[in-house]
Each structure stands twice: as structure tokens, then as C-alpha cells.
């Protein structure tokens, strides 16, 4: 075994820097050559071993030596990436172990244990995911909201072309909210199937009511009606004694998920910053607006929300500056100008539903909030927007560090008043063709196809889409004279 240790110490240069020489005290495997038969014999063995290792390589020479010199075998499996499947492990190095007590941990070469099927077990992966979920739930309960309250979303809506666009967005946002949601949809003009289909698709707890007036055509009147519809929804909250936080989710607004996390911090009545996107879709108009503002003050922020002083106390409200748009605001719903928000949008405020309950004792409600029962009973009219619900506006709670983060955006986009859309967006009767399928929408000027005959032929299938792709139905009545022309146009 002395020879083996000689081999080992020479191959073991730890921390591989040739800069350091091996410690002289470590050469305990060296032997001093003397002219004697035993030493010559050892020299011969040494040369033989060198030859074997040259021929067979490092790994196999160890094997040969092992078979020659050692008899004991341990039972560890050893697998390398070279694909040698089962190499018997060499006995651990027998150094003069000066351990007084026996240790089960042995120094030396050990096998690398690999189990027979070293691949993930799907049941264990499932269990691991369950553990991850549990840990994350615990984290959320520690660092997130302590006792989450339900979110009561109030949405006034009515049937129109853009309703599908808006309601889809609202529905998806509400479906993603990680808390309980009650969606109260108040619809002007009575309940309709369109809205009912959205409400049903959402798989949330919903209350869908109709409101008896039809939505007027001017933005101003519309705002008033929407306020009335919201008050109706608040009445429902009062009657059903819904418990949670009331959020005014207008159907054309866009909400971020953090909004719903942040409003959990509201105690009674809170205010948020709303980004106001007053856009008419007309780029020239925006530049003209900017031009009128170039002298003097910069364009004010398109935000509506609370404004605080340096200590975080609410001192006022920032409203959207409608001055630059004074002459160019939209009056009618389908005007091409920018739509202006009202002074204080409802969507920027959230309230605790307990404010609305009838028999909650007077002292449980804060003194700075008005008693809304009068309002809800229909004895009063809501004038000034949501701030009229509070007696002392300076006590309103500000959310998200005094509205530092804008968590929702206000936008009003509607189609032309006479725009039609398929009911339920389901195409029942066949669509009229505007582009025949054999002609590409991007015409090259050379093709002059007699369109009339082709159209008659292609009018048949009811489900033909207006795709305009050049691949087309090879209509069976292709006139022979026209074929060369059609192939030309397809190039």
C-alpha cells in the first residue's frame, strides 16, 4: 500500500497552484533508494505500474492495481459521465489514523451515490408545490393585509357599442382580485341580455339591477345620471347589508391590481389619485392645446386626487385643469373632442360599506361623515360629487402615501351615436363582402380584374370571413379565360 500512497500523494496537488511547493513534511511516502534486492524489486514494480498506467490510463491502472493488491471490496456504486456503469470502489486510504475514538466518517475516496432513476417524481413535485403555496400563504398573511375585506364594486353601465370593450376589461380586473368581490351593476334603460351575459361570465357574486331612465346623449347629463345610478347601488348595499369596501368601478376605467390591495387600508372614507386621460383621438387637437399653453405655466398633471403637505396631512385637492380644453370639449357623446372629467370623479373615492348601514350606531360612524340615510332615501339630491358625503373633507383618509401612486385611470371613449353592433357580438346573418377573397387588400395597380363576375361567384358561403387573403376558395366555376390573369395577380 506504500506504493498506492506514493501514487496518491503525487496526484494530489490540492489547490492546484504550481506556485506552492508541497510541504516537505508531507512527503512521507517517499522512499530512499538503496542498492538492495528489495529496493530493486520495488523499482521494477514501480516501472511496471508506470507502464500500465501509460497504456491503460489513470483510471484503469488503478483498477489493475486494485485487483493485484487488494482483496476487500466495498459496496458503493460509482458512476461517471463516461458511462462506466459499475466500478468497484477502492478501499479508503489507510493513513495512520490517530483517532482515539472510532468515527463513522472516513477520509478518502468515496463513491458518488446515484439512485437508479435520478429523475423527479411527479407526486413529490406536487407536494413541493403544495408546500410552496402554504409558505407563500403564510407570507401573505404576515406581510400583506391582515384581515381582508370584501370588495364591493359599483358599476353604472348601459348597452352600447363600446360596452363589450369596457365591461370585458372591468370583468377581468375584478376576476383577478384576490379578495371576495361583489359586483353591483346598475344598468340604465333596464336590464339587458348583453350586460347579463357579461355579468354571468364573470363567475363573481353579482347584483344586476336596471335603472329606469335611458342614458342621455350629453356628457354632462350622463354624469348626473351615473351619480344617481351609483346612489341606487348604495341603496342596495344598505338593504342587503353588504360588508366590505365600496369601490366605484366605472366601466370605461382601467384599474391596477395594487388598487385593490391598497384600498384594504381604508377605515371609513378614502381618496385616491386618478390618472385622467382626456384624449379625443385627435392628435392635432392635442398639439393645439399644448400651443395655447406654451406661454406661462406648464401643462398641469393629468391627475385628480388628494394633495398633501410635507408632513402627509391632506391640505387640498388637485383637479384636472380643464382650461386648455375650454373651447374644445365634447358635449355630445360622440363628439370628436376630448371628454372632460367632472370636478371630482366618483372613482377616486372608496368608502366602508358600514357607513351606509341603517342601524349602525351613530358613534360607530365617524363624525365627519354625513348621515347618508337621507340621501339614500331619495329625499335629497347629490350635488357636488362624492365629497358631499362628508361633512369635513379634510378628514378624508388618503391612500397610497397621499396618492403618490396612481392606481387607476379615467377614460371616456364611446362610439358614434348611430353605430350599430351585432347583438351579443354574435354574427347571425352573413356579413356583406367588402373585399373579395381572391383579391388582396393591398392592390397592385397592374391587376385589373373584372370584379363583378367574381363577386357573384364568391357570394355563396355564409361564413366567409373578410380576411382578404390571396389564398382563396378556388371557385369551381373558374372561367378558363380568366385563369392566367388570376395566377398573375397572385404573384
Amino acid at each position, binding site marked *: 500500500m506504500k506504493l498506492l500512497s506514493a501514487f496518491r500523494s503525487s496526484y*494530489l*496537488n*490540492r*489547490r*492546484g*497552484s504550481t*506556485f*506552492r511547493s508541497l*510541504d*516537505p*513534511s*508531507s512527503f*512521507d511516502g517517499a522512499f530512499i533508494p538503496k542498492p538492495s534486492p528489495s529496493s530493486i524489486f520495488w523499482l521494477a514494480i514501480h516501472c511496471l505500474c508506470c507502464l500500465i498506467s501509460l497504456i491503460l490510463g489513470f*483510471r484503469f491502472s488503478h483498477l489493475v492495481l486494485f485487483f493485484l493488491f487488494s482483496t476487500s471490496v466495498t459496496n458503493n456504486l*460509482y*458512476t*461517471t459521465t463516461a458511462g462506466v456503469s459499475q466500478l468497484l470502489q477502492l478501499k479508503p*486510504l489507510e*493513513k*495512520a*489514523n*490517530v*483517532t482515539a*475514538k*472510532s*468515527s*463513522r*466518517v472516513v*477520509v*478518502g*475516496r*468515496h*463513491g*458518488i*451515490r*446515484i*439512485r437508479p432513476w*435520478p*429523475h*423527479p*417524481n411527479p407526486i*413529490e*413535485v406536487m*407536494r*413541493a408545490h*403544495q*408546500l*410552496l403555496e*402554504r*409558505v*407563500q400563504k*403564510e*407570507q*401573505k398573511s*404576515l*406581510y*400583506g393585509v391582515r384581515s381582508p375585506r370584501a370588495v364591493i364594486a359599483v358599476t353604472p353601465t348601459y348597452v352600447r357599442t363600446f360596452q363589450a370593450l369596457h365591461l370585458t376589461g372591468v370583468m377581468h380586473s375584478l376576476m383577478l382580485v384576490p379578495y371576495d368581490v361583489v359586483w353591483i351593476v346598475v344598468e340604465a334603460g333596464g336590464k339587458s341580455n348583453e350586460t347579463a351575459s357579461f355579468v354571468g361570465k364573470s363567475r363573481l357574486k353579482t347584483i344586476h339591477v336596471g335603472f329606469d331612465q335611458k342614458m342621455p346623449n350629453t356628457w354632462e347629463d350622463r354624469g348626473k345620471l351615473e351619480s344617481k345610478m351609483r346612489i341606487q347601488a348604495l341603496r342596495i348595499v344598505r338593504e342587503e347589508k353588504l360588508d366590505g369596501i365600496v369601490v366605484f368601478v366605472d366601466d370605461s376605467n382601467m384599474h391596477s391590481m395594487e388598487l385593490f390591495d391598497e384600498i384594504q387600508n381604508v377605515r371609513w372614507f378614502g381618496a385616491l389619485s386618478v390618472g385622467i386621460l382626456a384624449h379625443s383621438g385627435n392628435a392635432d387637437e392635442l398639439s393645439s392645446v399644448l400651443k395655447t399653453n406654451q406661454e406661462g405655466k406648464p401643462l398641469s398633471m393629468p391627475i385628480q386626487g388628494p394633495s398633501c403637505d410635507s408632513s402627509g396631512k391632506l391640505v387640498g385637492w388637485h383637479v384636472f385643469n380643464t382650461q386648455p380644453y375650454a373651447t374644445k370639449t365634447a358635449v355630445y357623446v360622440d363628439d370628436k373632442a376630448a371628454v372632460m372629467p367632472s370636478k371630482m370623479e366618483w372613482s377616486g373615492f372608496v368608502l366602508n360599506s358600514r357607513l351606509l348601514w341603517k342601524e349602525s350606531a351613530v358613534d360607530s360612524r365617524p363624525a365627519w361623515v354625513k348621515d347618508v340615510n337621507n340621501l339614500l332615501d331619495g329625499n335629497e339630491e347629490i350635488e357636488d360629487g362624492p365629497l358631499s358625503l362628508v361633512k369635513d373633507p379634510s378628514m378624508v383618509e388618503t391612500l397610497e402615501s397621499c396618492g403618490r401612486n396612481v392606481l387607476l385611470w379615467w377614460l371616456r371613449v364611446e362610439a358614434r351615436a348611430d353605430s350599430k353592433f351585432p347583438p351579443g357580438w354574435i354574427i347571425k346573418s352573413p356579413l356583406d363582402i367588402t373585399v373579395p377573397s381572391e383579391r388582396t387588400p393591398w392592390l397592385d395597380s397592374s391587376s385589373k380584374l373584372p370584379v363583378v363576375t367574381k363577386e357573384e361567384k364568391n357570394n355563396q358561403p355564409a361564413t366567409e370571413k373578410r380576411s382578404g387573403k390571396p389564398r382563396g376558395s378556388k371557385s369551381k366555376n373558374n372561367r378558363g379565360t380568366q385563369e392566367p390573369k388570376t395566377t398573375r395577380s397572385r404573384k
Partner: protein
Amino acid sequence: MKLTSWVLIFLACNLAFSTISAFRLSRSQPTERISGSAGDVLDDNPVGRLKVFVYELPSKYNKKILQKDPRCLTHMFAAEIYMQRFLLSSPVRTLNPEEADWFYVPVYTTCDLTPNGLPLPFKSPRMMRSAIQLIASNWPYWNRTEGADHFFVVPHDFGACFHYQEEKAIGRGILPLLQRATLVQTFGQRNHVCLKEGSITVPPYAPPQKMQSHLIPGKTPRSIFVYFRGLFYDVGNDPEGGYYARGARAAVWENFKDNPLFDISTEHPTTYYEDMQRAIFCLCPLGWAPWSPRLVEAVIFGCIPVIIADDIVLPFADAIPWEDIGVFVDEKDVPYLDTILTSIPPEVILRKQRLLANPSMKQAMLFPQPAQPGDAFHQVLNGLARKLPHDRSVYLRAGEKLLNWTAGPVADLKPW
């Protein structure tokens, strides 16, 4: 009658409060009290319980070495340097050696670094010998007890065996002159030559500022199941595997390299600390030596350490109940690591995380500058204080000599 009812109510309240074991700190994670085998000792204050005298060695043993290579302040063996600095300005220090319970010898044996930053231990035995000869000849306290009330900080790979290779270290054994002294070292393995009875195991040095600066908010969900970054095969010194880490790291790689639950690789990402905070389990397998700074990092970042090192002795094992905090896996069970980890019940995992979140646990693993209450320095002093009072056998009778000054390899006897 009324008095007894009041007494009963009082007793009932006491019982109720004493059974509460988890308490909430405002807006942070609820933690659990750590009661080790020695009781609730992490928060003990050593001041007043012991007195330490620091020898004034010539600066060639400490300051000059540090000046030659300031890298010693940031590598994982820096505990010896910071220990001296701490003791010099600590209230347990006494300038009167007659009233001292413990004597500290500040000699930096792990500061002779290669260009790569790895310490060379070849001169350390001679340096230690020469330091001891100095104190034995200049002060009478060494000969009084032959070093039994002295303590040394030897944070190198195998402690006072002064070698990085395990066989050589075992062959050398602990330096004969230190046979009676208390050793404060990072190495700890049961039934091993290089772990003396009565040694204090400390964690390796990890830079506290650097770790604090990489903290991420606590609500970031932990989405990695098992995390490890480091070598599996040491191709420079052990290309085939089997020697390095006794084959355990290679086994981890071969068994789990394509397992989606195991995020293991040899890369060196810049987000290493952040990733640890997003993992539930962090592997702490042995390398060439059983201890590693990964344990400290795992504790600081709240990741449950999975310790794969047979018979390892973890830092402050008498004060910290490591069995409750980490997961111990035998090296022979490494191929079944995924089964082991996924079959841990969730309540156990949550309890371990609560224990890890305890700030006194995290403090005990660090060597902050300047020292803070409850940190590793104080735990060392607590450990030393627990060994007091010295029993009679410590003091030698006149003329009695127990140490052999000429034992050990011949090369060690050369002067330094």
C-alpha cells in the same frame, strides 16, 4: 374568600401567559423563542460574568501581518482579527491579569494568503509555538496552568491541526502545545482529532454590511424550493469526484440536475443573496471541510439550511437548537433528498422559518463592527463564561509539567 379568588385569577393569568410561546413583533414576522440545550441563553449578557486579559504581543504576530495583506479583513477567517479588536474595547477586558478568568493570545495564524486569497497554514504551527514561548517566558500565567485558562481563535479549515488537507490534518493532530487550551474554531466534527473536548465552535465570518444591503422586502414570495450555488466537482484537485465533499456534492448534482425543484448550479450570480431570500431550503453541504459560510447566509436570509455533513458540530451547538432549525441529511441519504424534503409537514417548515426569523438567532451568527449585543462575539464570551469556574485540575502543582514542548513534526520546532 375574596383573596383566594384573586390569587386564583392571578395564577390563571400567569399560566396563560407562560404558555404563549410565539409572540408578534409589530408588522414583522412572528418569531419563536430559541431555547437550546443550555436554556434560553442567546440573550445572556457576558459582561460581569467573566474577565479576559489580552496579552500584548509584539505587532509581528498581529498588526504587521495584517498590514502585509489587508485581505484578511474580509475573508471567511477574519474572525480572529475582529475578536481581538472586540476584546480590546470590551467591558470584559481587564488590565489586571491577576483577576482575569481567561487569557487571550492575539496571534493571526490564518493571514498568510496566496495570490488567490487562500491561507497557507504551513508556518502557522511555528508562529503559534513562538507566541506561546513568548508568553510563557514573559508572564507566569501560562506555566501556572499550562494554558488551560487561555483561549485561542483558530478559524482555519481544520482548526488547530493547521492543514487544509484532511488526512494531513489528522496526521498532525492538534498542536501539542494547545492540548489544554480552549480553542475557538469554525471546524467541528464529532469524534475527530481536530475537535478538542471543550472547544467553542463559531460561525465563519460573513460580511454583515454586504448581507444587509441585499435584503429584499419580506412579502416577496418564496418561490424556489431548494437553492444551491457552488462547486460540485473540484476539477483542480479532484477531477473525478469522490474525494471532494466525500462525494456528497457530486451526488447532489448527478441526482438532481434536471429536477425542477432544485435550483442548483455552479454559477456565480450577482443576485445570490436575493435568490436565497426567495428560497425555502438552502443546501449547505460539506466541501473540503464540513463547515461553510452558507450556513450563516441561510440563517440571515431566512432560508432553512439543509446540512449534509455527517457528524458535523454546528456553531454554538449548546446554545442553538440546530435540530429544530435546520434539516440534517446523512450523506448516504443524499439520493433521496427530494423525498426527504417534500415529506416534511408544512407546520414544521413554518416553525423552522419562525425560529430563523428570530433576530437573536441572526445576530448570533454575525460579527458586526462595532459589536452589538447578542452577536457572535458575545456568544463566544457566553460560552467561555459557561465554562467557569475553572476546576482545581486546571492549576498545576509546582513543578508539574503536562505539555511536551518537543512533540510534533520536526519542522514545527524551528523558530518563526
